[in-house]
């Protein structure tokens, strides 16, 4: 405790002596306004005022210089304090102006970045839009193509049907034509084609078969089965044999008239599929026939 008191007293004595010495030498301590002004100027420099607010900093420098001169000439007079006060305010203004300028530059940078972002986003959006548009156009084109194809198929089908109708119409003038589940059936009367019990084609049969061949070629065909049919007179075997020979004769003739041999076959059915009553002459006449079963294209 005694040591502390002694230290305090020594310090006080030392300060008084120092002040006395300084006063004796004519050294005046700067007024607080000048100290503040110097500090403010330093802070303005550190805040990059030389770069950001050079005009204001120069004004502050000149004001501080005036204050320093005043302090040198007048010491701690009121004029020095007023001048230093002004210098401090100018230095603070310079620092504030530097801060404002830095903020303006930051804002300008942000605005540029905003523009870049917006441009980039817009570009990306447009690219995506273009891609989507192209995809839609592609799908529309494919759809249109399918539609076109369908239309072409429909037209082809209509043309084929029309052709078939025309062929059928011409055939109907020379034979019975009927559409059945097994195909288009052209029925030629046996009495027109063959003599009784014979399988050689009569002369007038050839004319008929020429017309049939032409109609078939016009219509188009996938496959033809020539079926020979008889009435029930005579043995079943004999009728079967006769019907087969008659079918072969018609087949050969048609092949000779340009029908594709690979697409036509002959079958003997005999009396098995009667279409009329064999008890009557008319019935038997109807049963004696050759049927061409045509599978259209």
């Amino acid at each position: 405790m005694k040591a502390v008191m002694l230290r305090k007293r020594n310090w006080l004595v030392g300060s008084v002596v120092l002040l006395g010495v300084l006063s004796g030498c004519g050294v005046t301590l700067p007024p607080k306004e000048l100290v503040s002004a110097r500090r403010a100027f330093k802070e303005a420099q550190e805040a990059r005022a030389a770069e950001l607010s050079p005009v204001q900093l120069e004004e502050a420098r000149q004001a501080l210089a005036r204050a320093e001169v005043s302090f040198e000439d007048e010491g701690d007079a009121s004029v020095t304090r007023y001048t230093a006060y002004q210098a401090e305010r100018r230095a603070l203004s310079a620092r504030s102006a530097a801060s404002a300028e830095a903020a303006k530059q930051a804002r300008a940078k942000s605005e540029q970045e905003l523009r870049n972002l917006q441009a980039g986003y817009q570009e990306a959006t447009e690219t995506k839009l273009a891609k989507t548009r192209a995809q839609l156009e592609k799908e529309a084109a494919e759809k249109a193509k399918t539609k076109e194809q369908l239309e072409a198929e429909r037209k082809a089908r209509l043309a084929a049907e029309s052709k078939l109708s025309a062929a059928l119409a011409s055939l109907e003038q020379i034979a019975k034509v009927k559409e059945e589940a097994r195909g288009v059936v052209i029925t030629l009367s046996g009495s027109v084609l063959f003599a009784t019990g014979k399988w050689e084609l009569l002369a007038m049969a050839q004319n008929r078969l020429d017309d049939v061949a032409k109609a078939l070629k016009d219509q188009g065909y996938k496959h033809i089965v020539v079926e020979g049919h008889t009435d029930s007179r005579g043995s079943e075997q004999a009728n079967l044999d006769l019907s087969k020979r008659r079918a072969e004769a018609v087949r050969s003739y048609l092949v000779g008239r340009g029908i594709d041999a690979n697409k036509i076959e002959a079958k003997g059915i005999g009396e098995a599929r009667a279409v009329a009553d064999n008890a009557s002459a008319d019935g038997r006449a109807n049963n004696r026939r050759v049927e061409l079963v045509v599978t259209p294209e």
Partner: protein
Amino acid sequence: MTKVLVLGMSAVVSLAVACGGAAVPHDKVTAAEAEMRAAEVGGASDVQQAALHLKLAQDQIVKGKALIQEGENEEAALVLDCAQTDAQYALALAKEETAKKEAEAAAKEVAELKRKTAKGP
């Protein structure tokens, strides 16, 4: 008569010299008041620190005018100069505040747009 006038004028001048000799700083009153108005228009009243220096400037103008009344022209001039610098500082603070707010708003807009566009279009 002329002699009286000359003598009278000399007396007045001598009196003026004896009292300090500084001209009445009416121009400094005008200048200080103009700086104050500029600071007010610049929004200094809306910024706390700026409003404080605006008040200081106002008080100094009042003091300066009082000193003029008392014939203390030299001191009045100094006080009015201080008023000017305080008003100028008030305006600088207001401008700084505005600039900072605008910079902040722009930065916020950028951040917002970045957030929105992060996932792409």
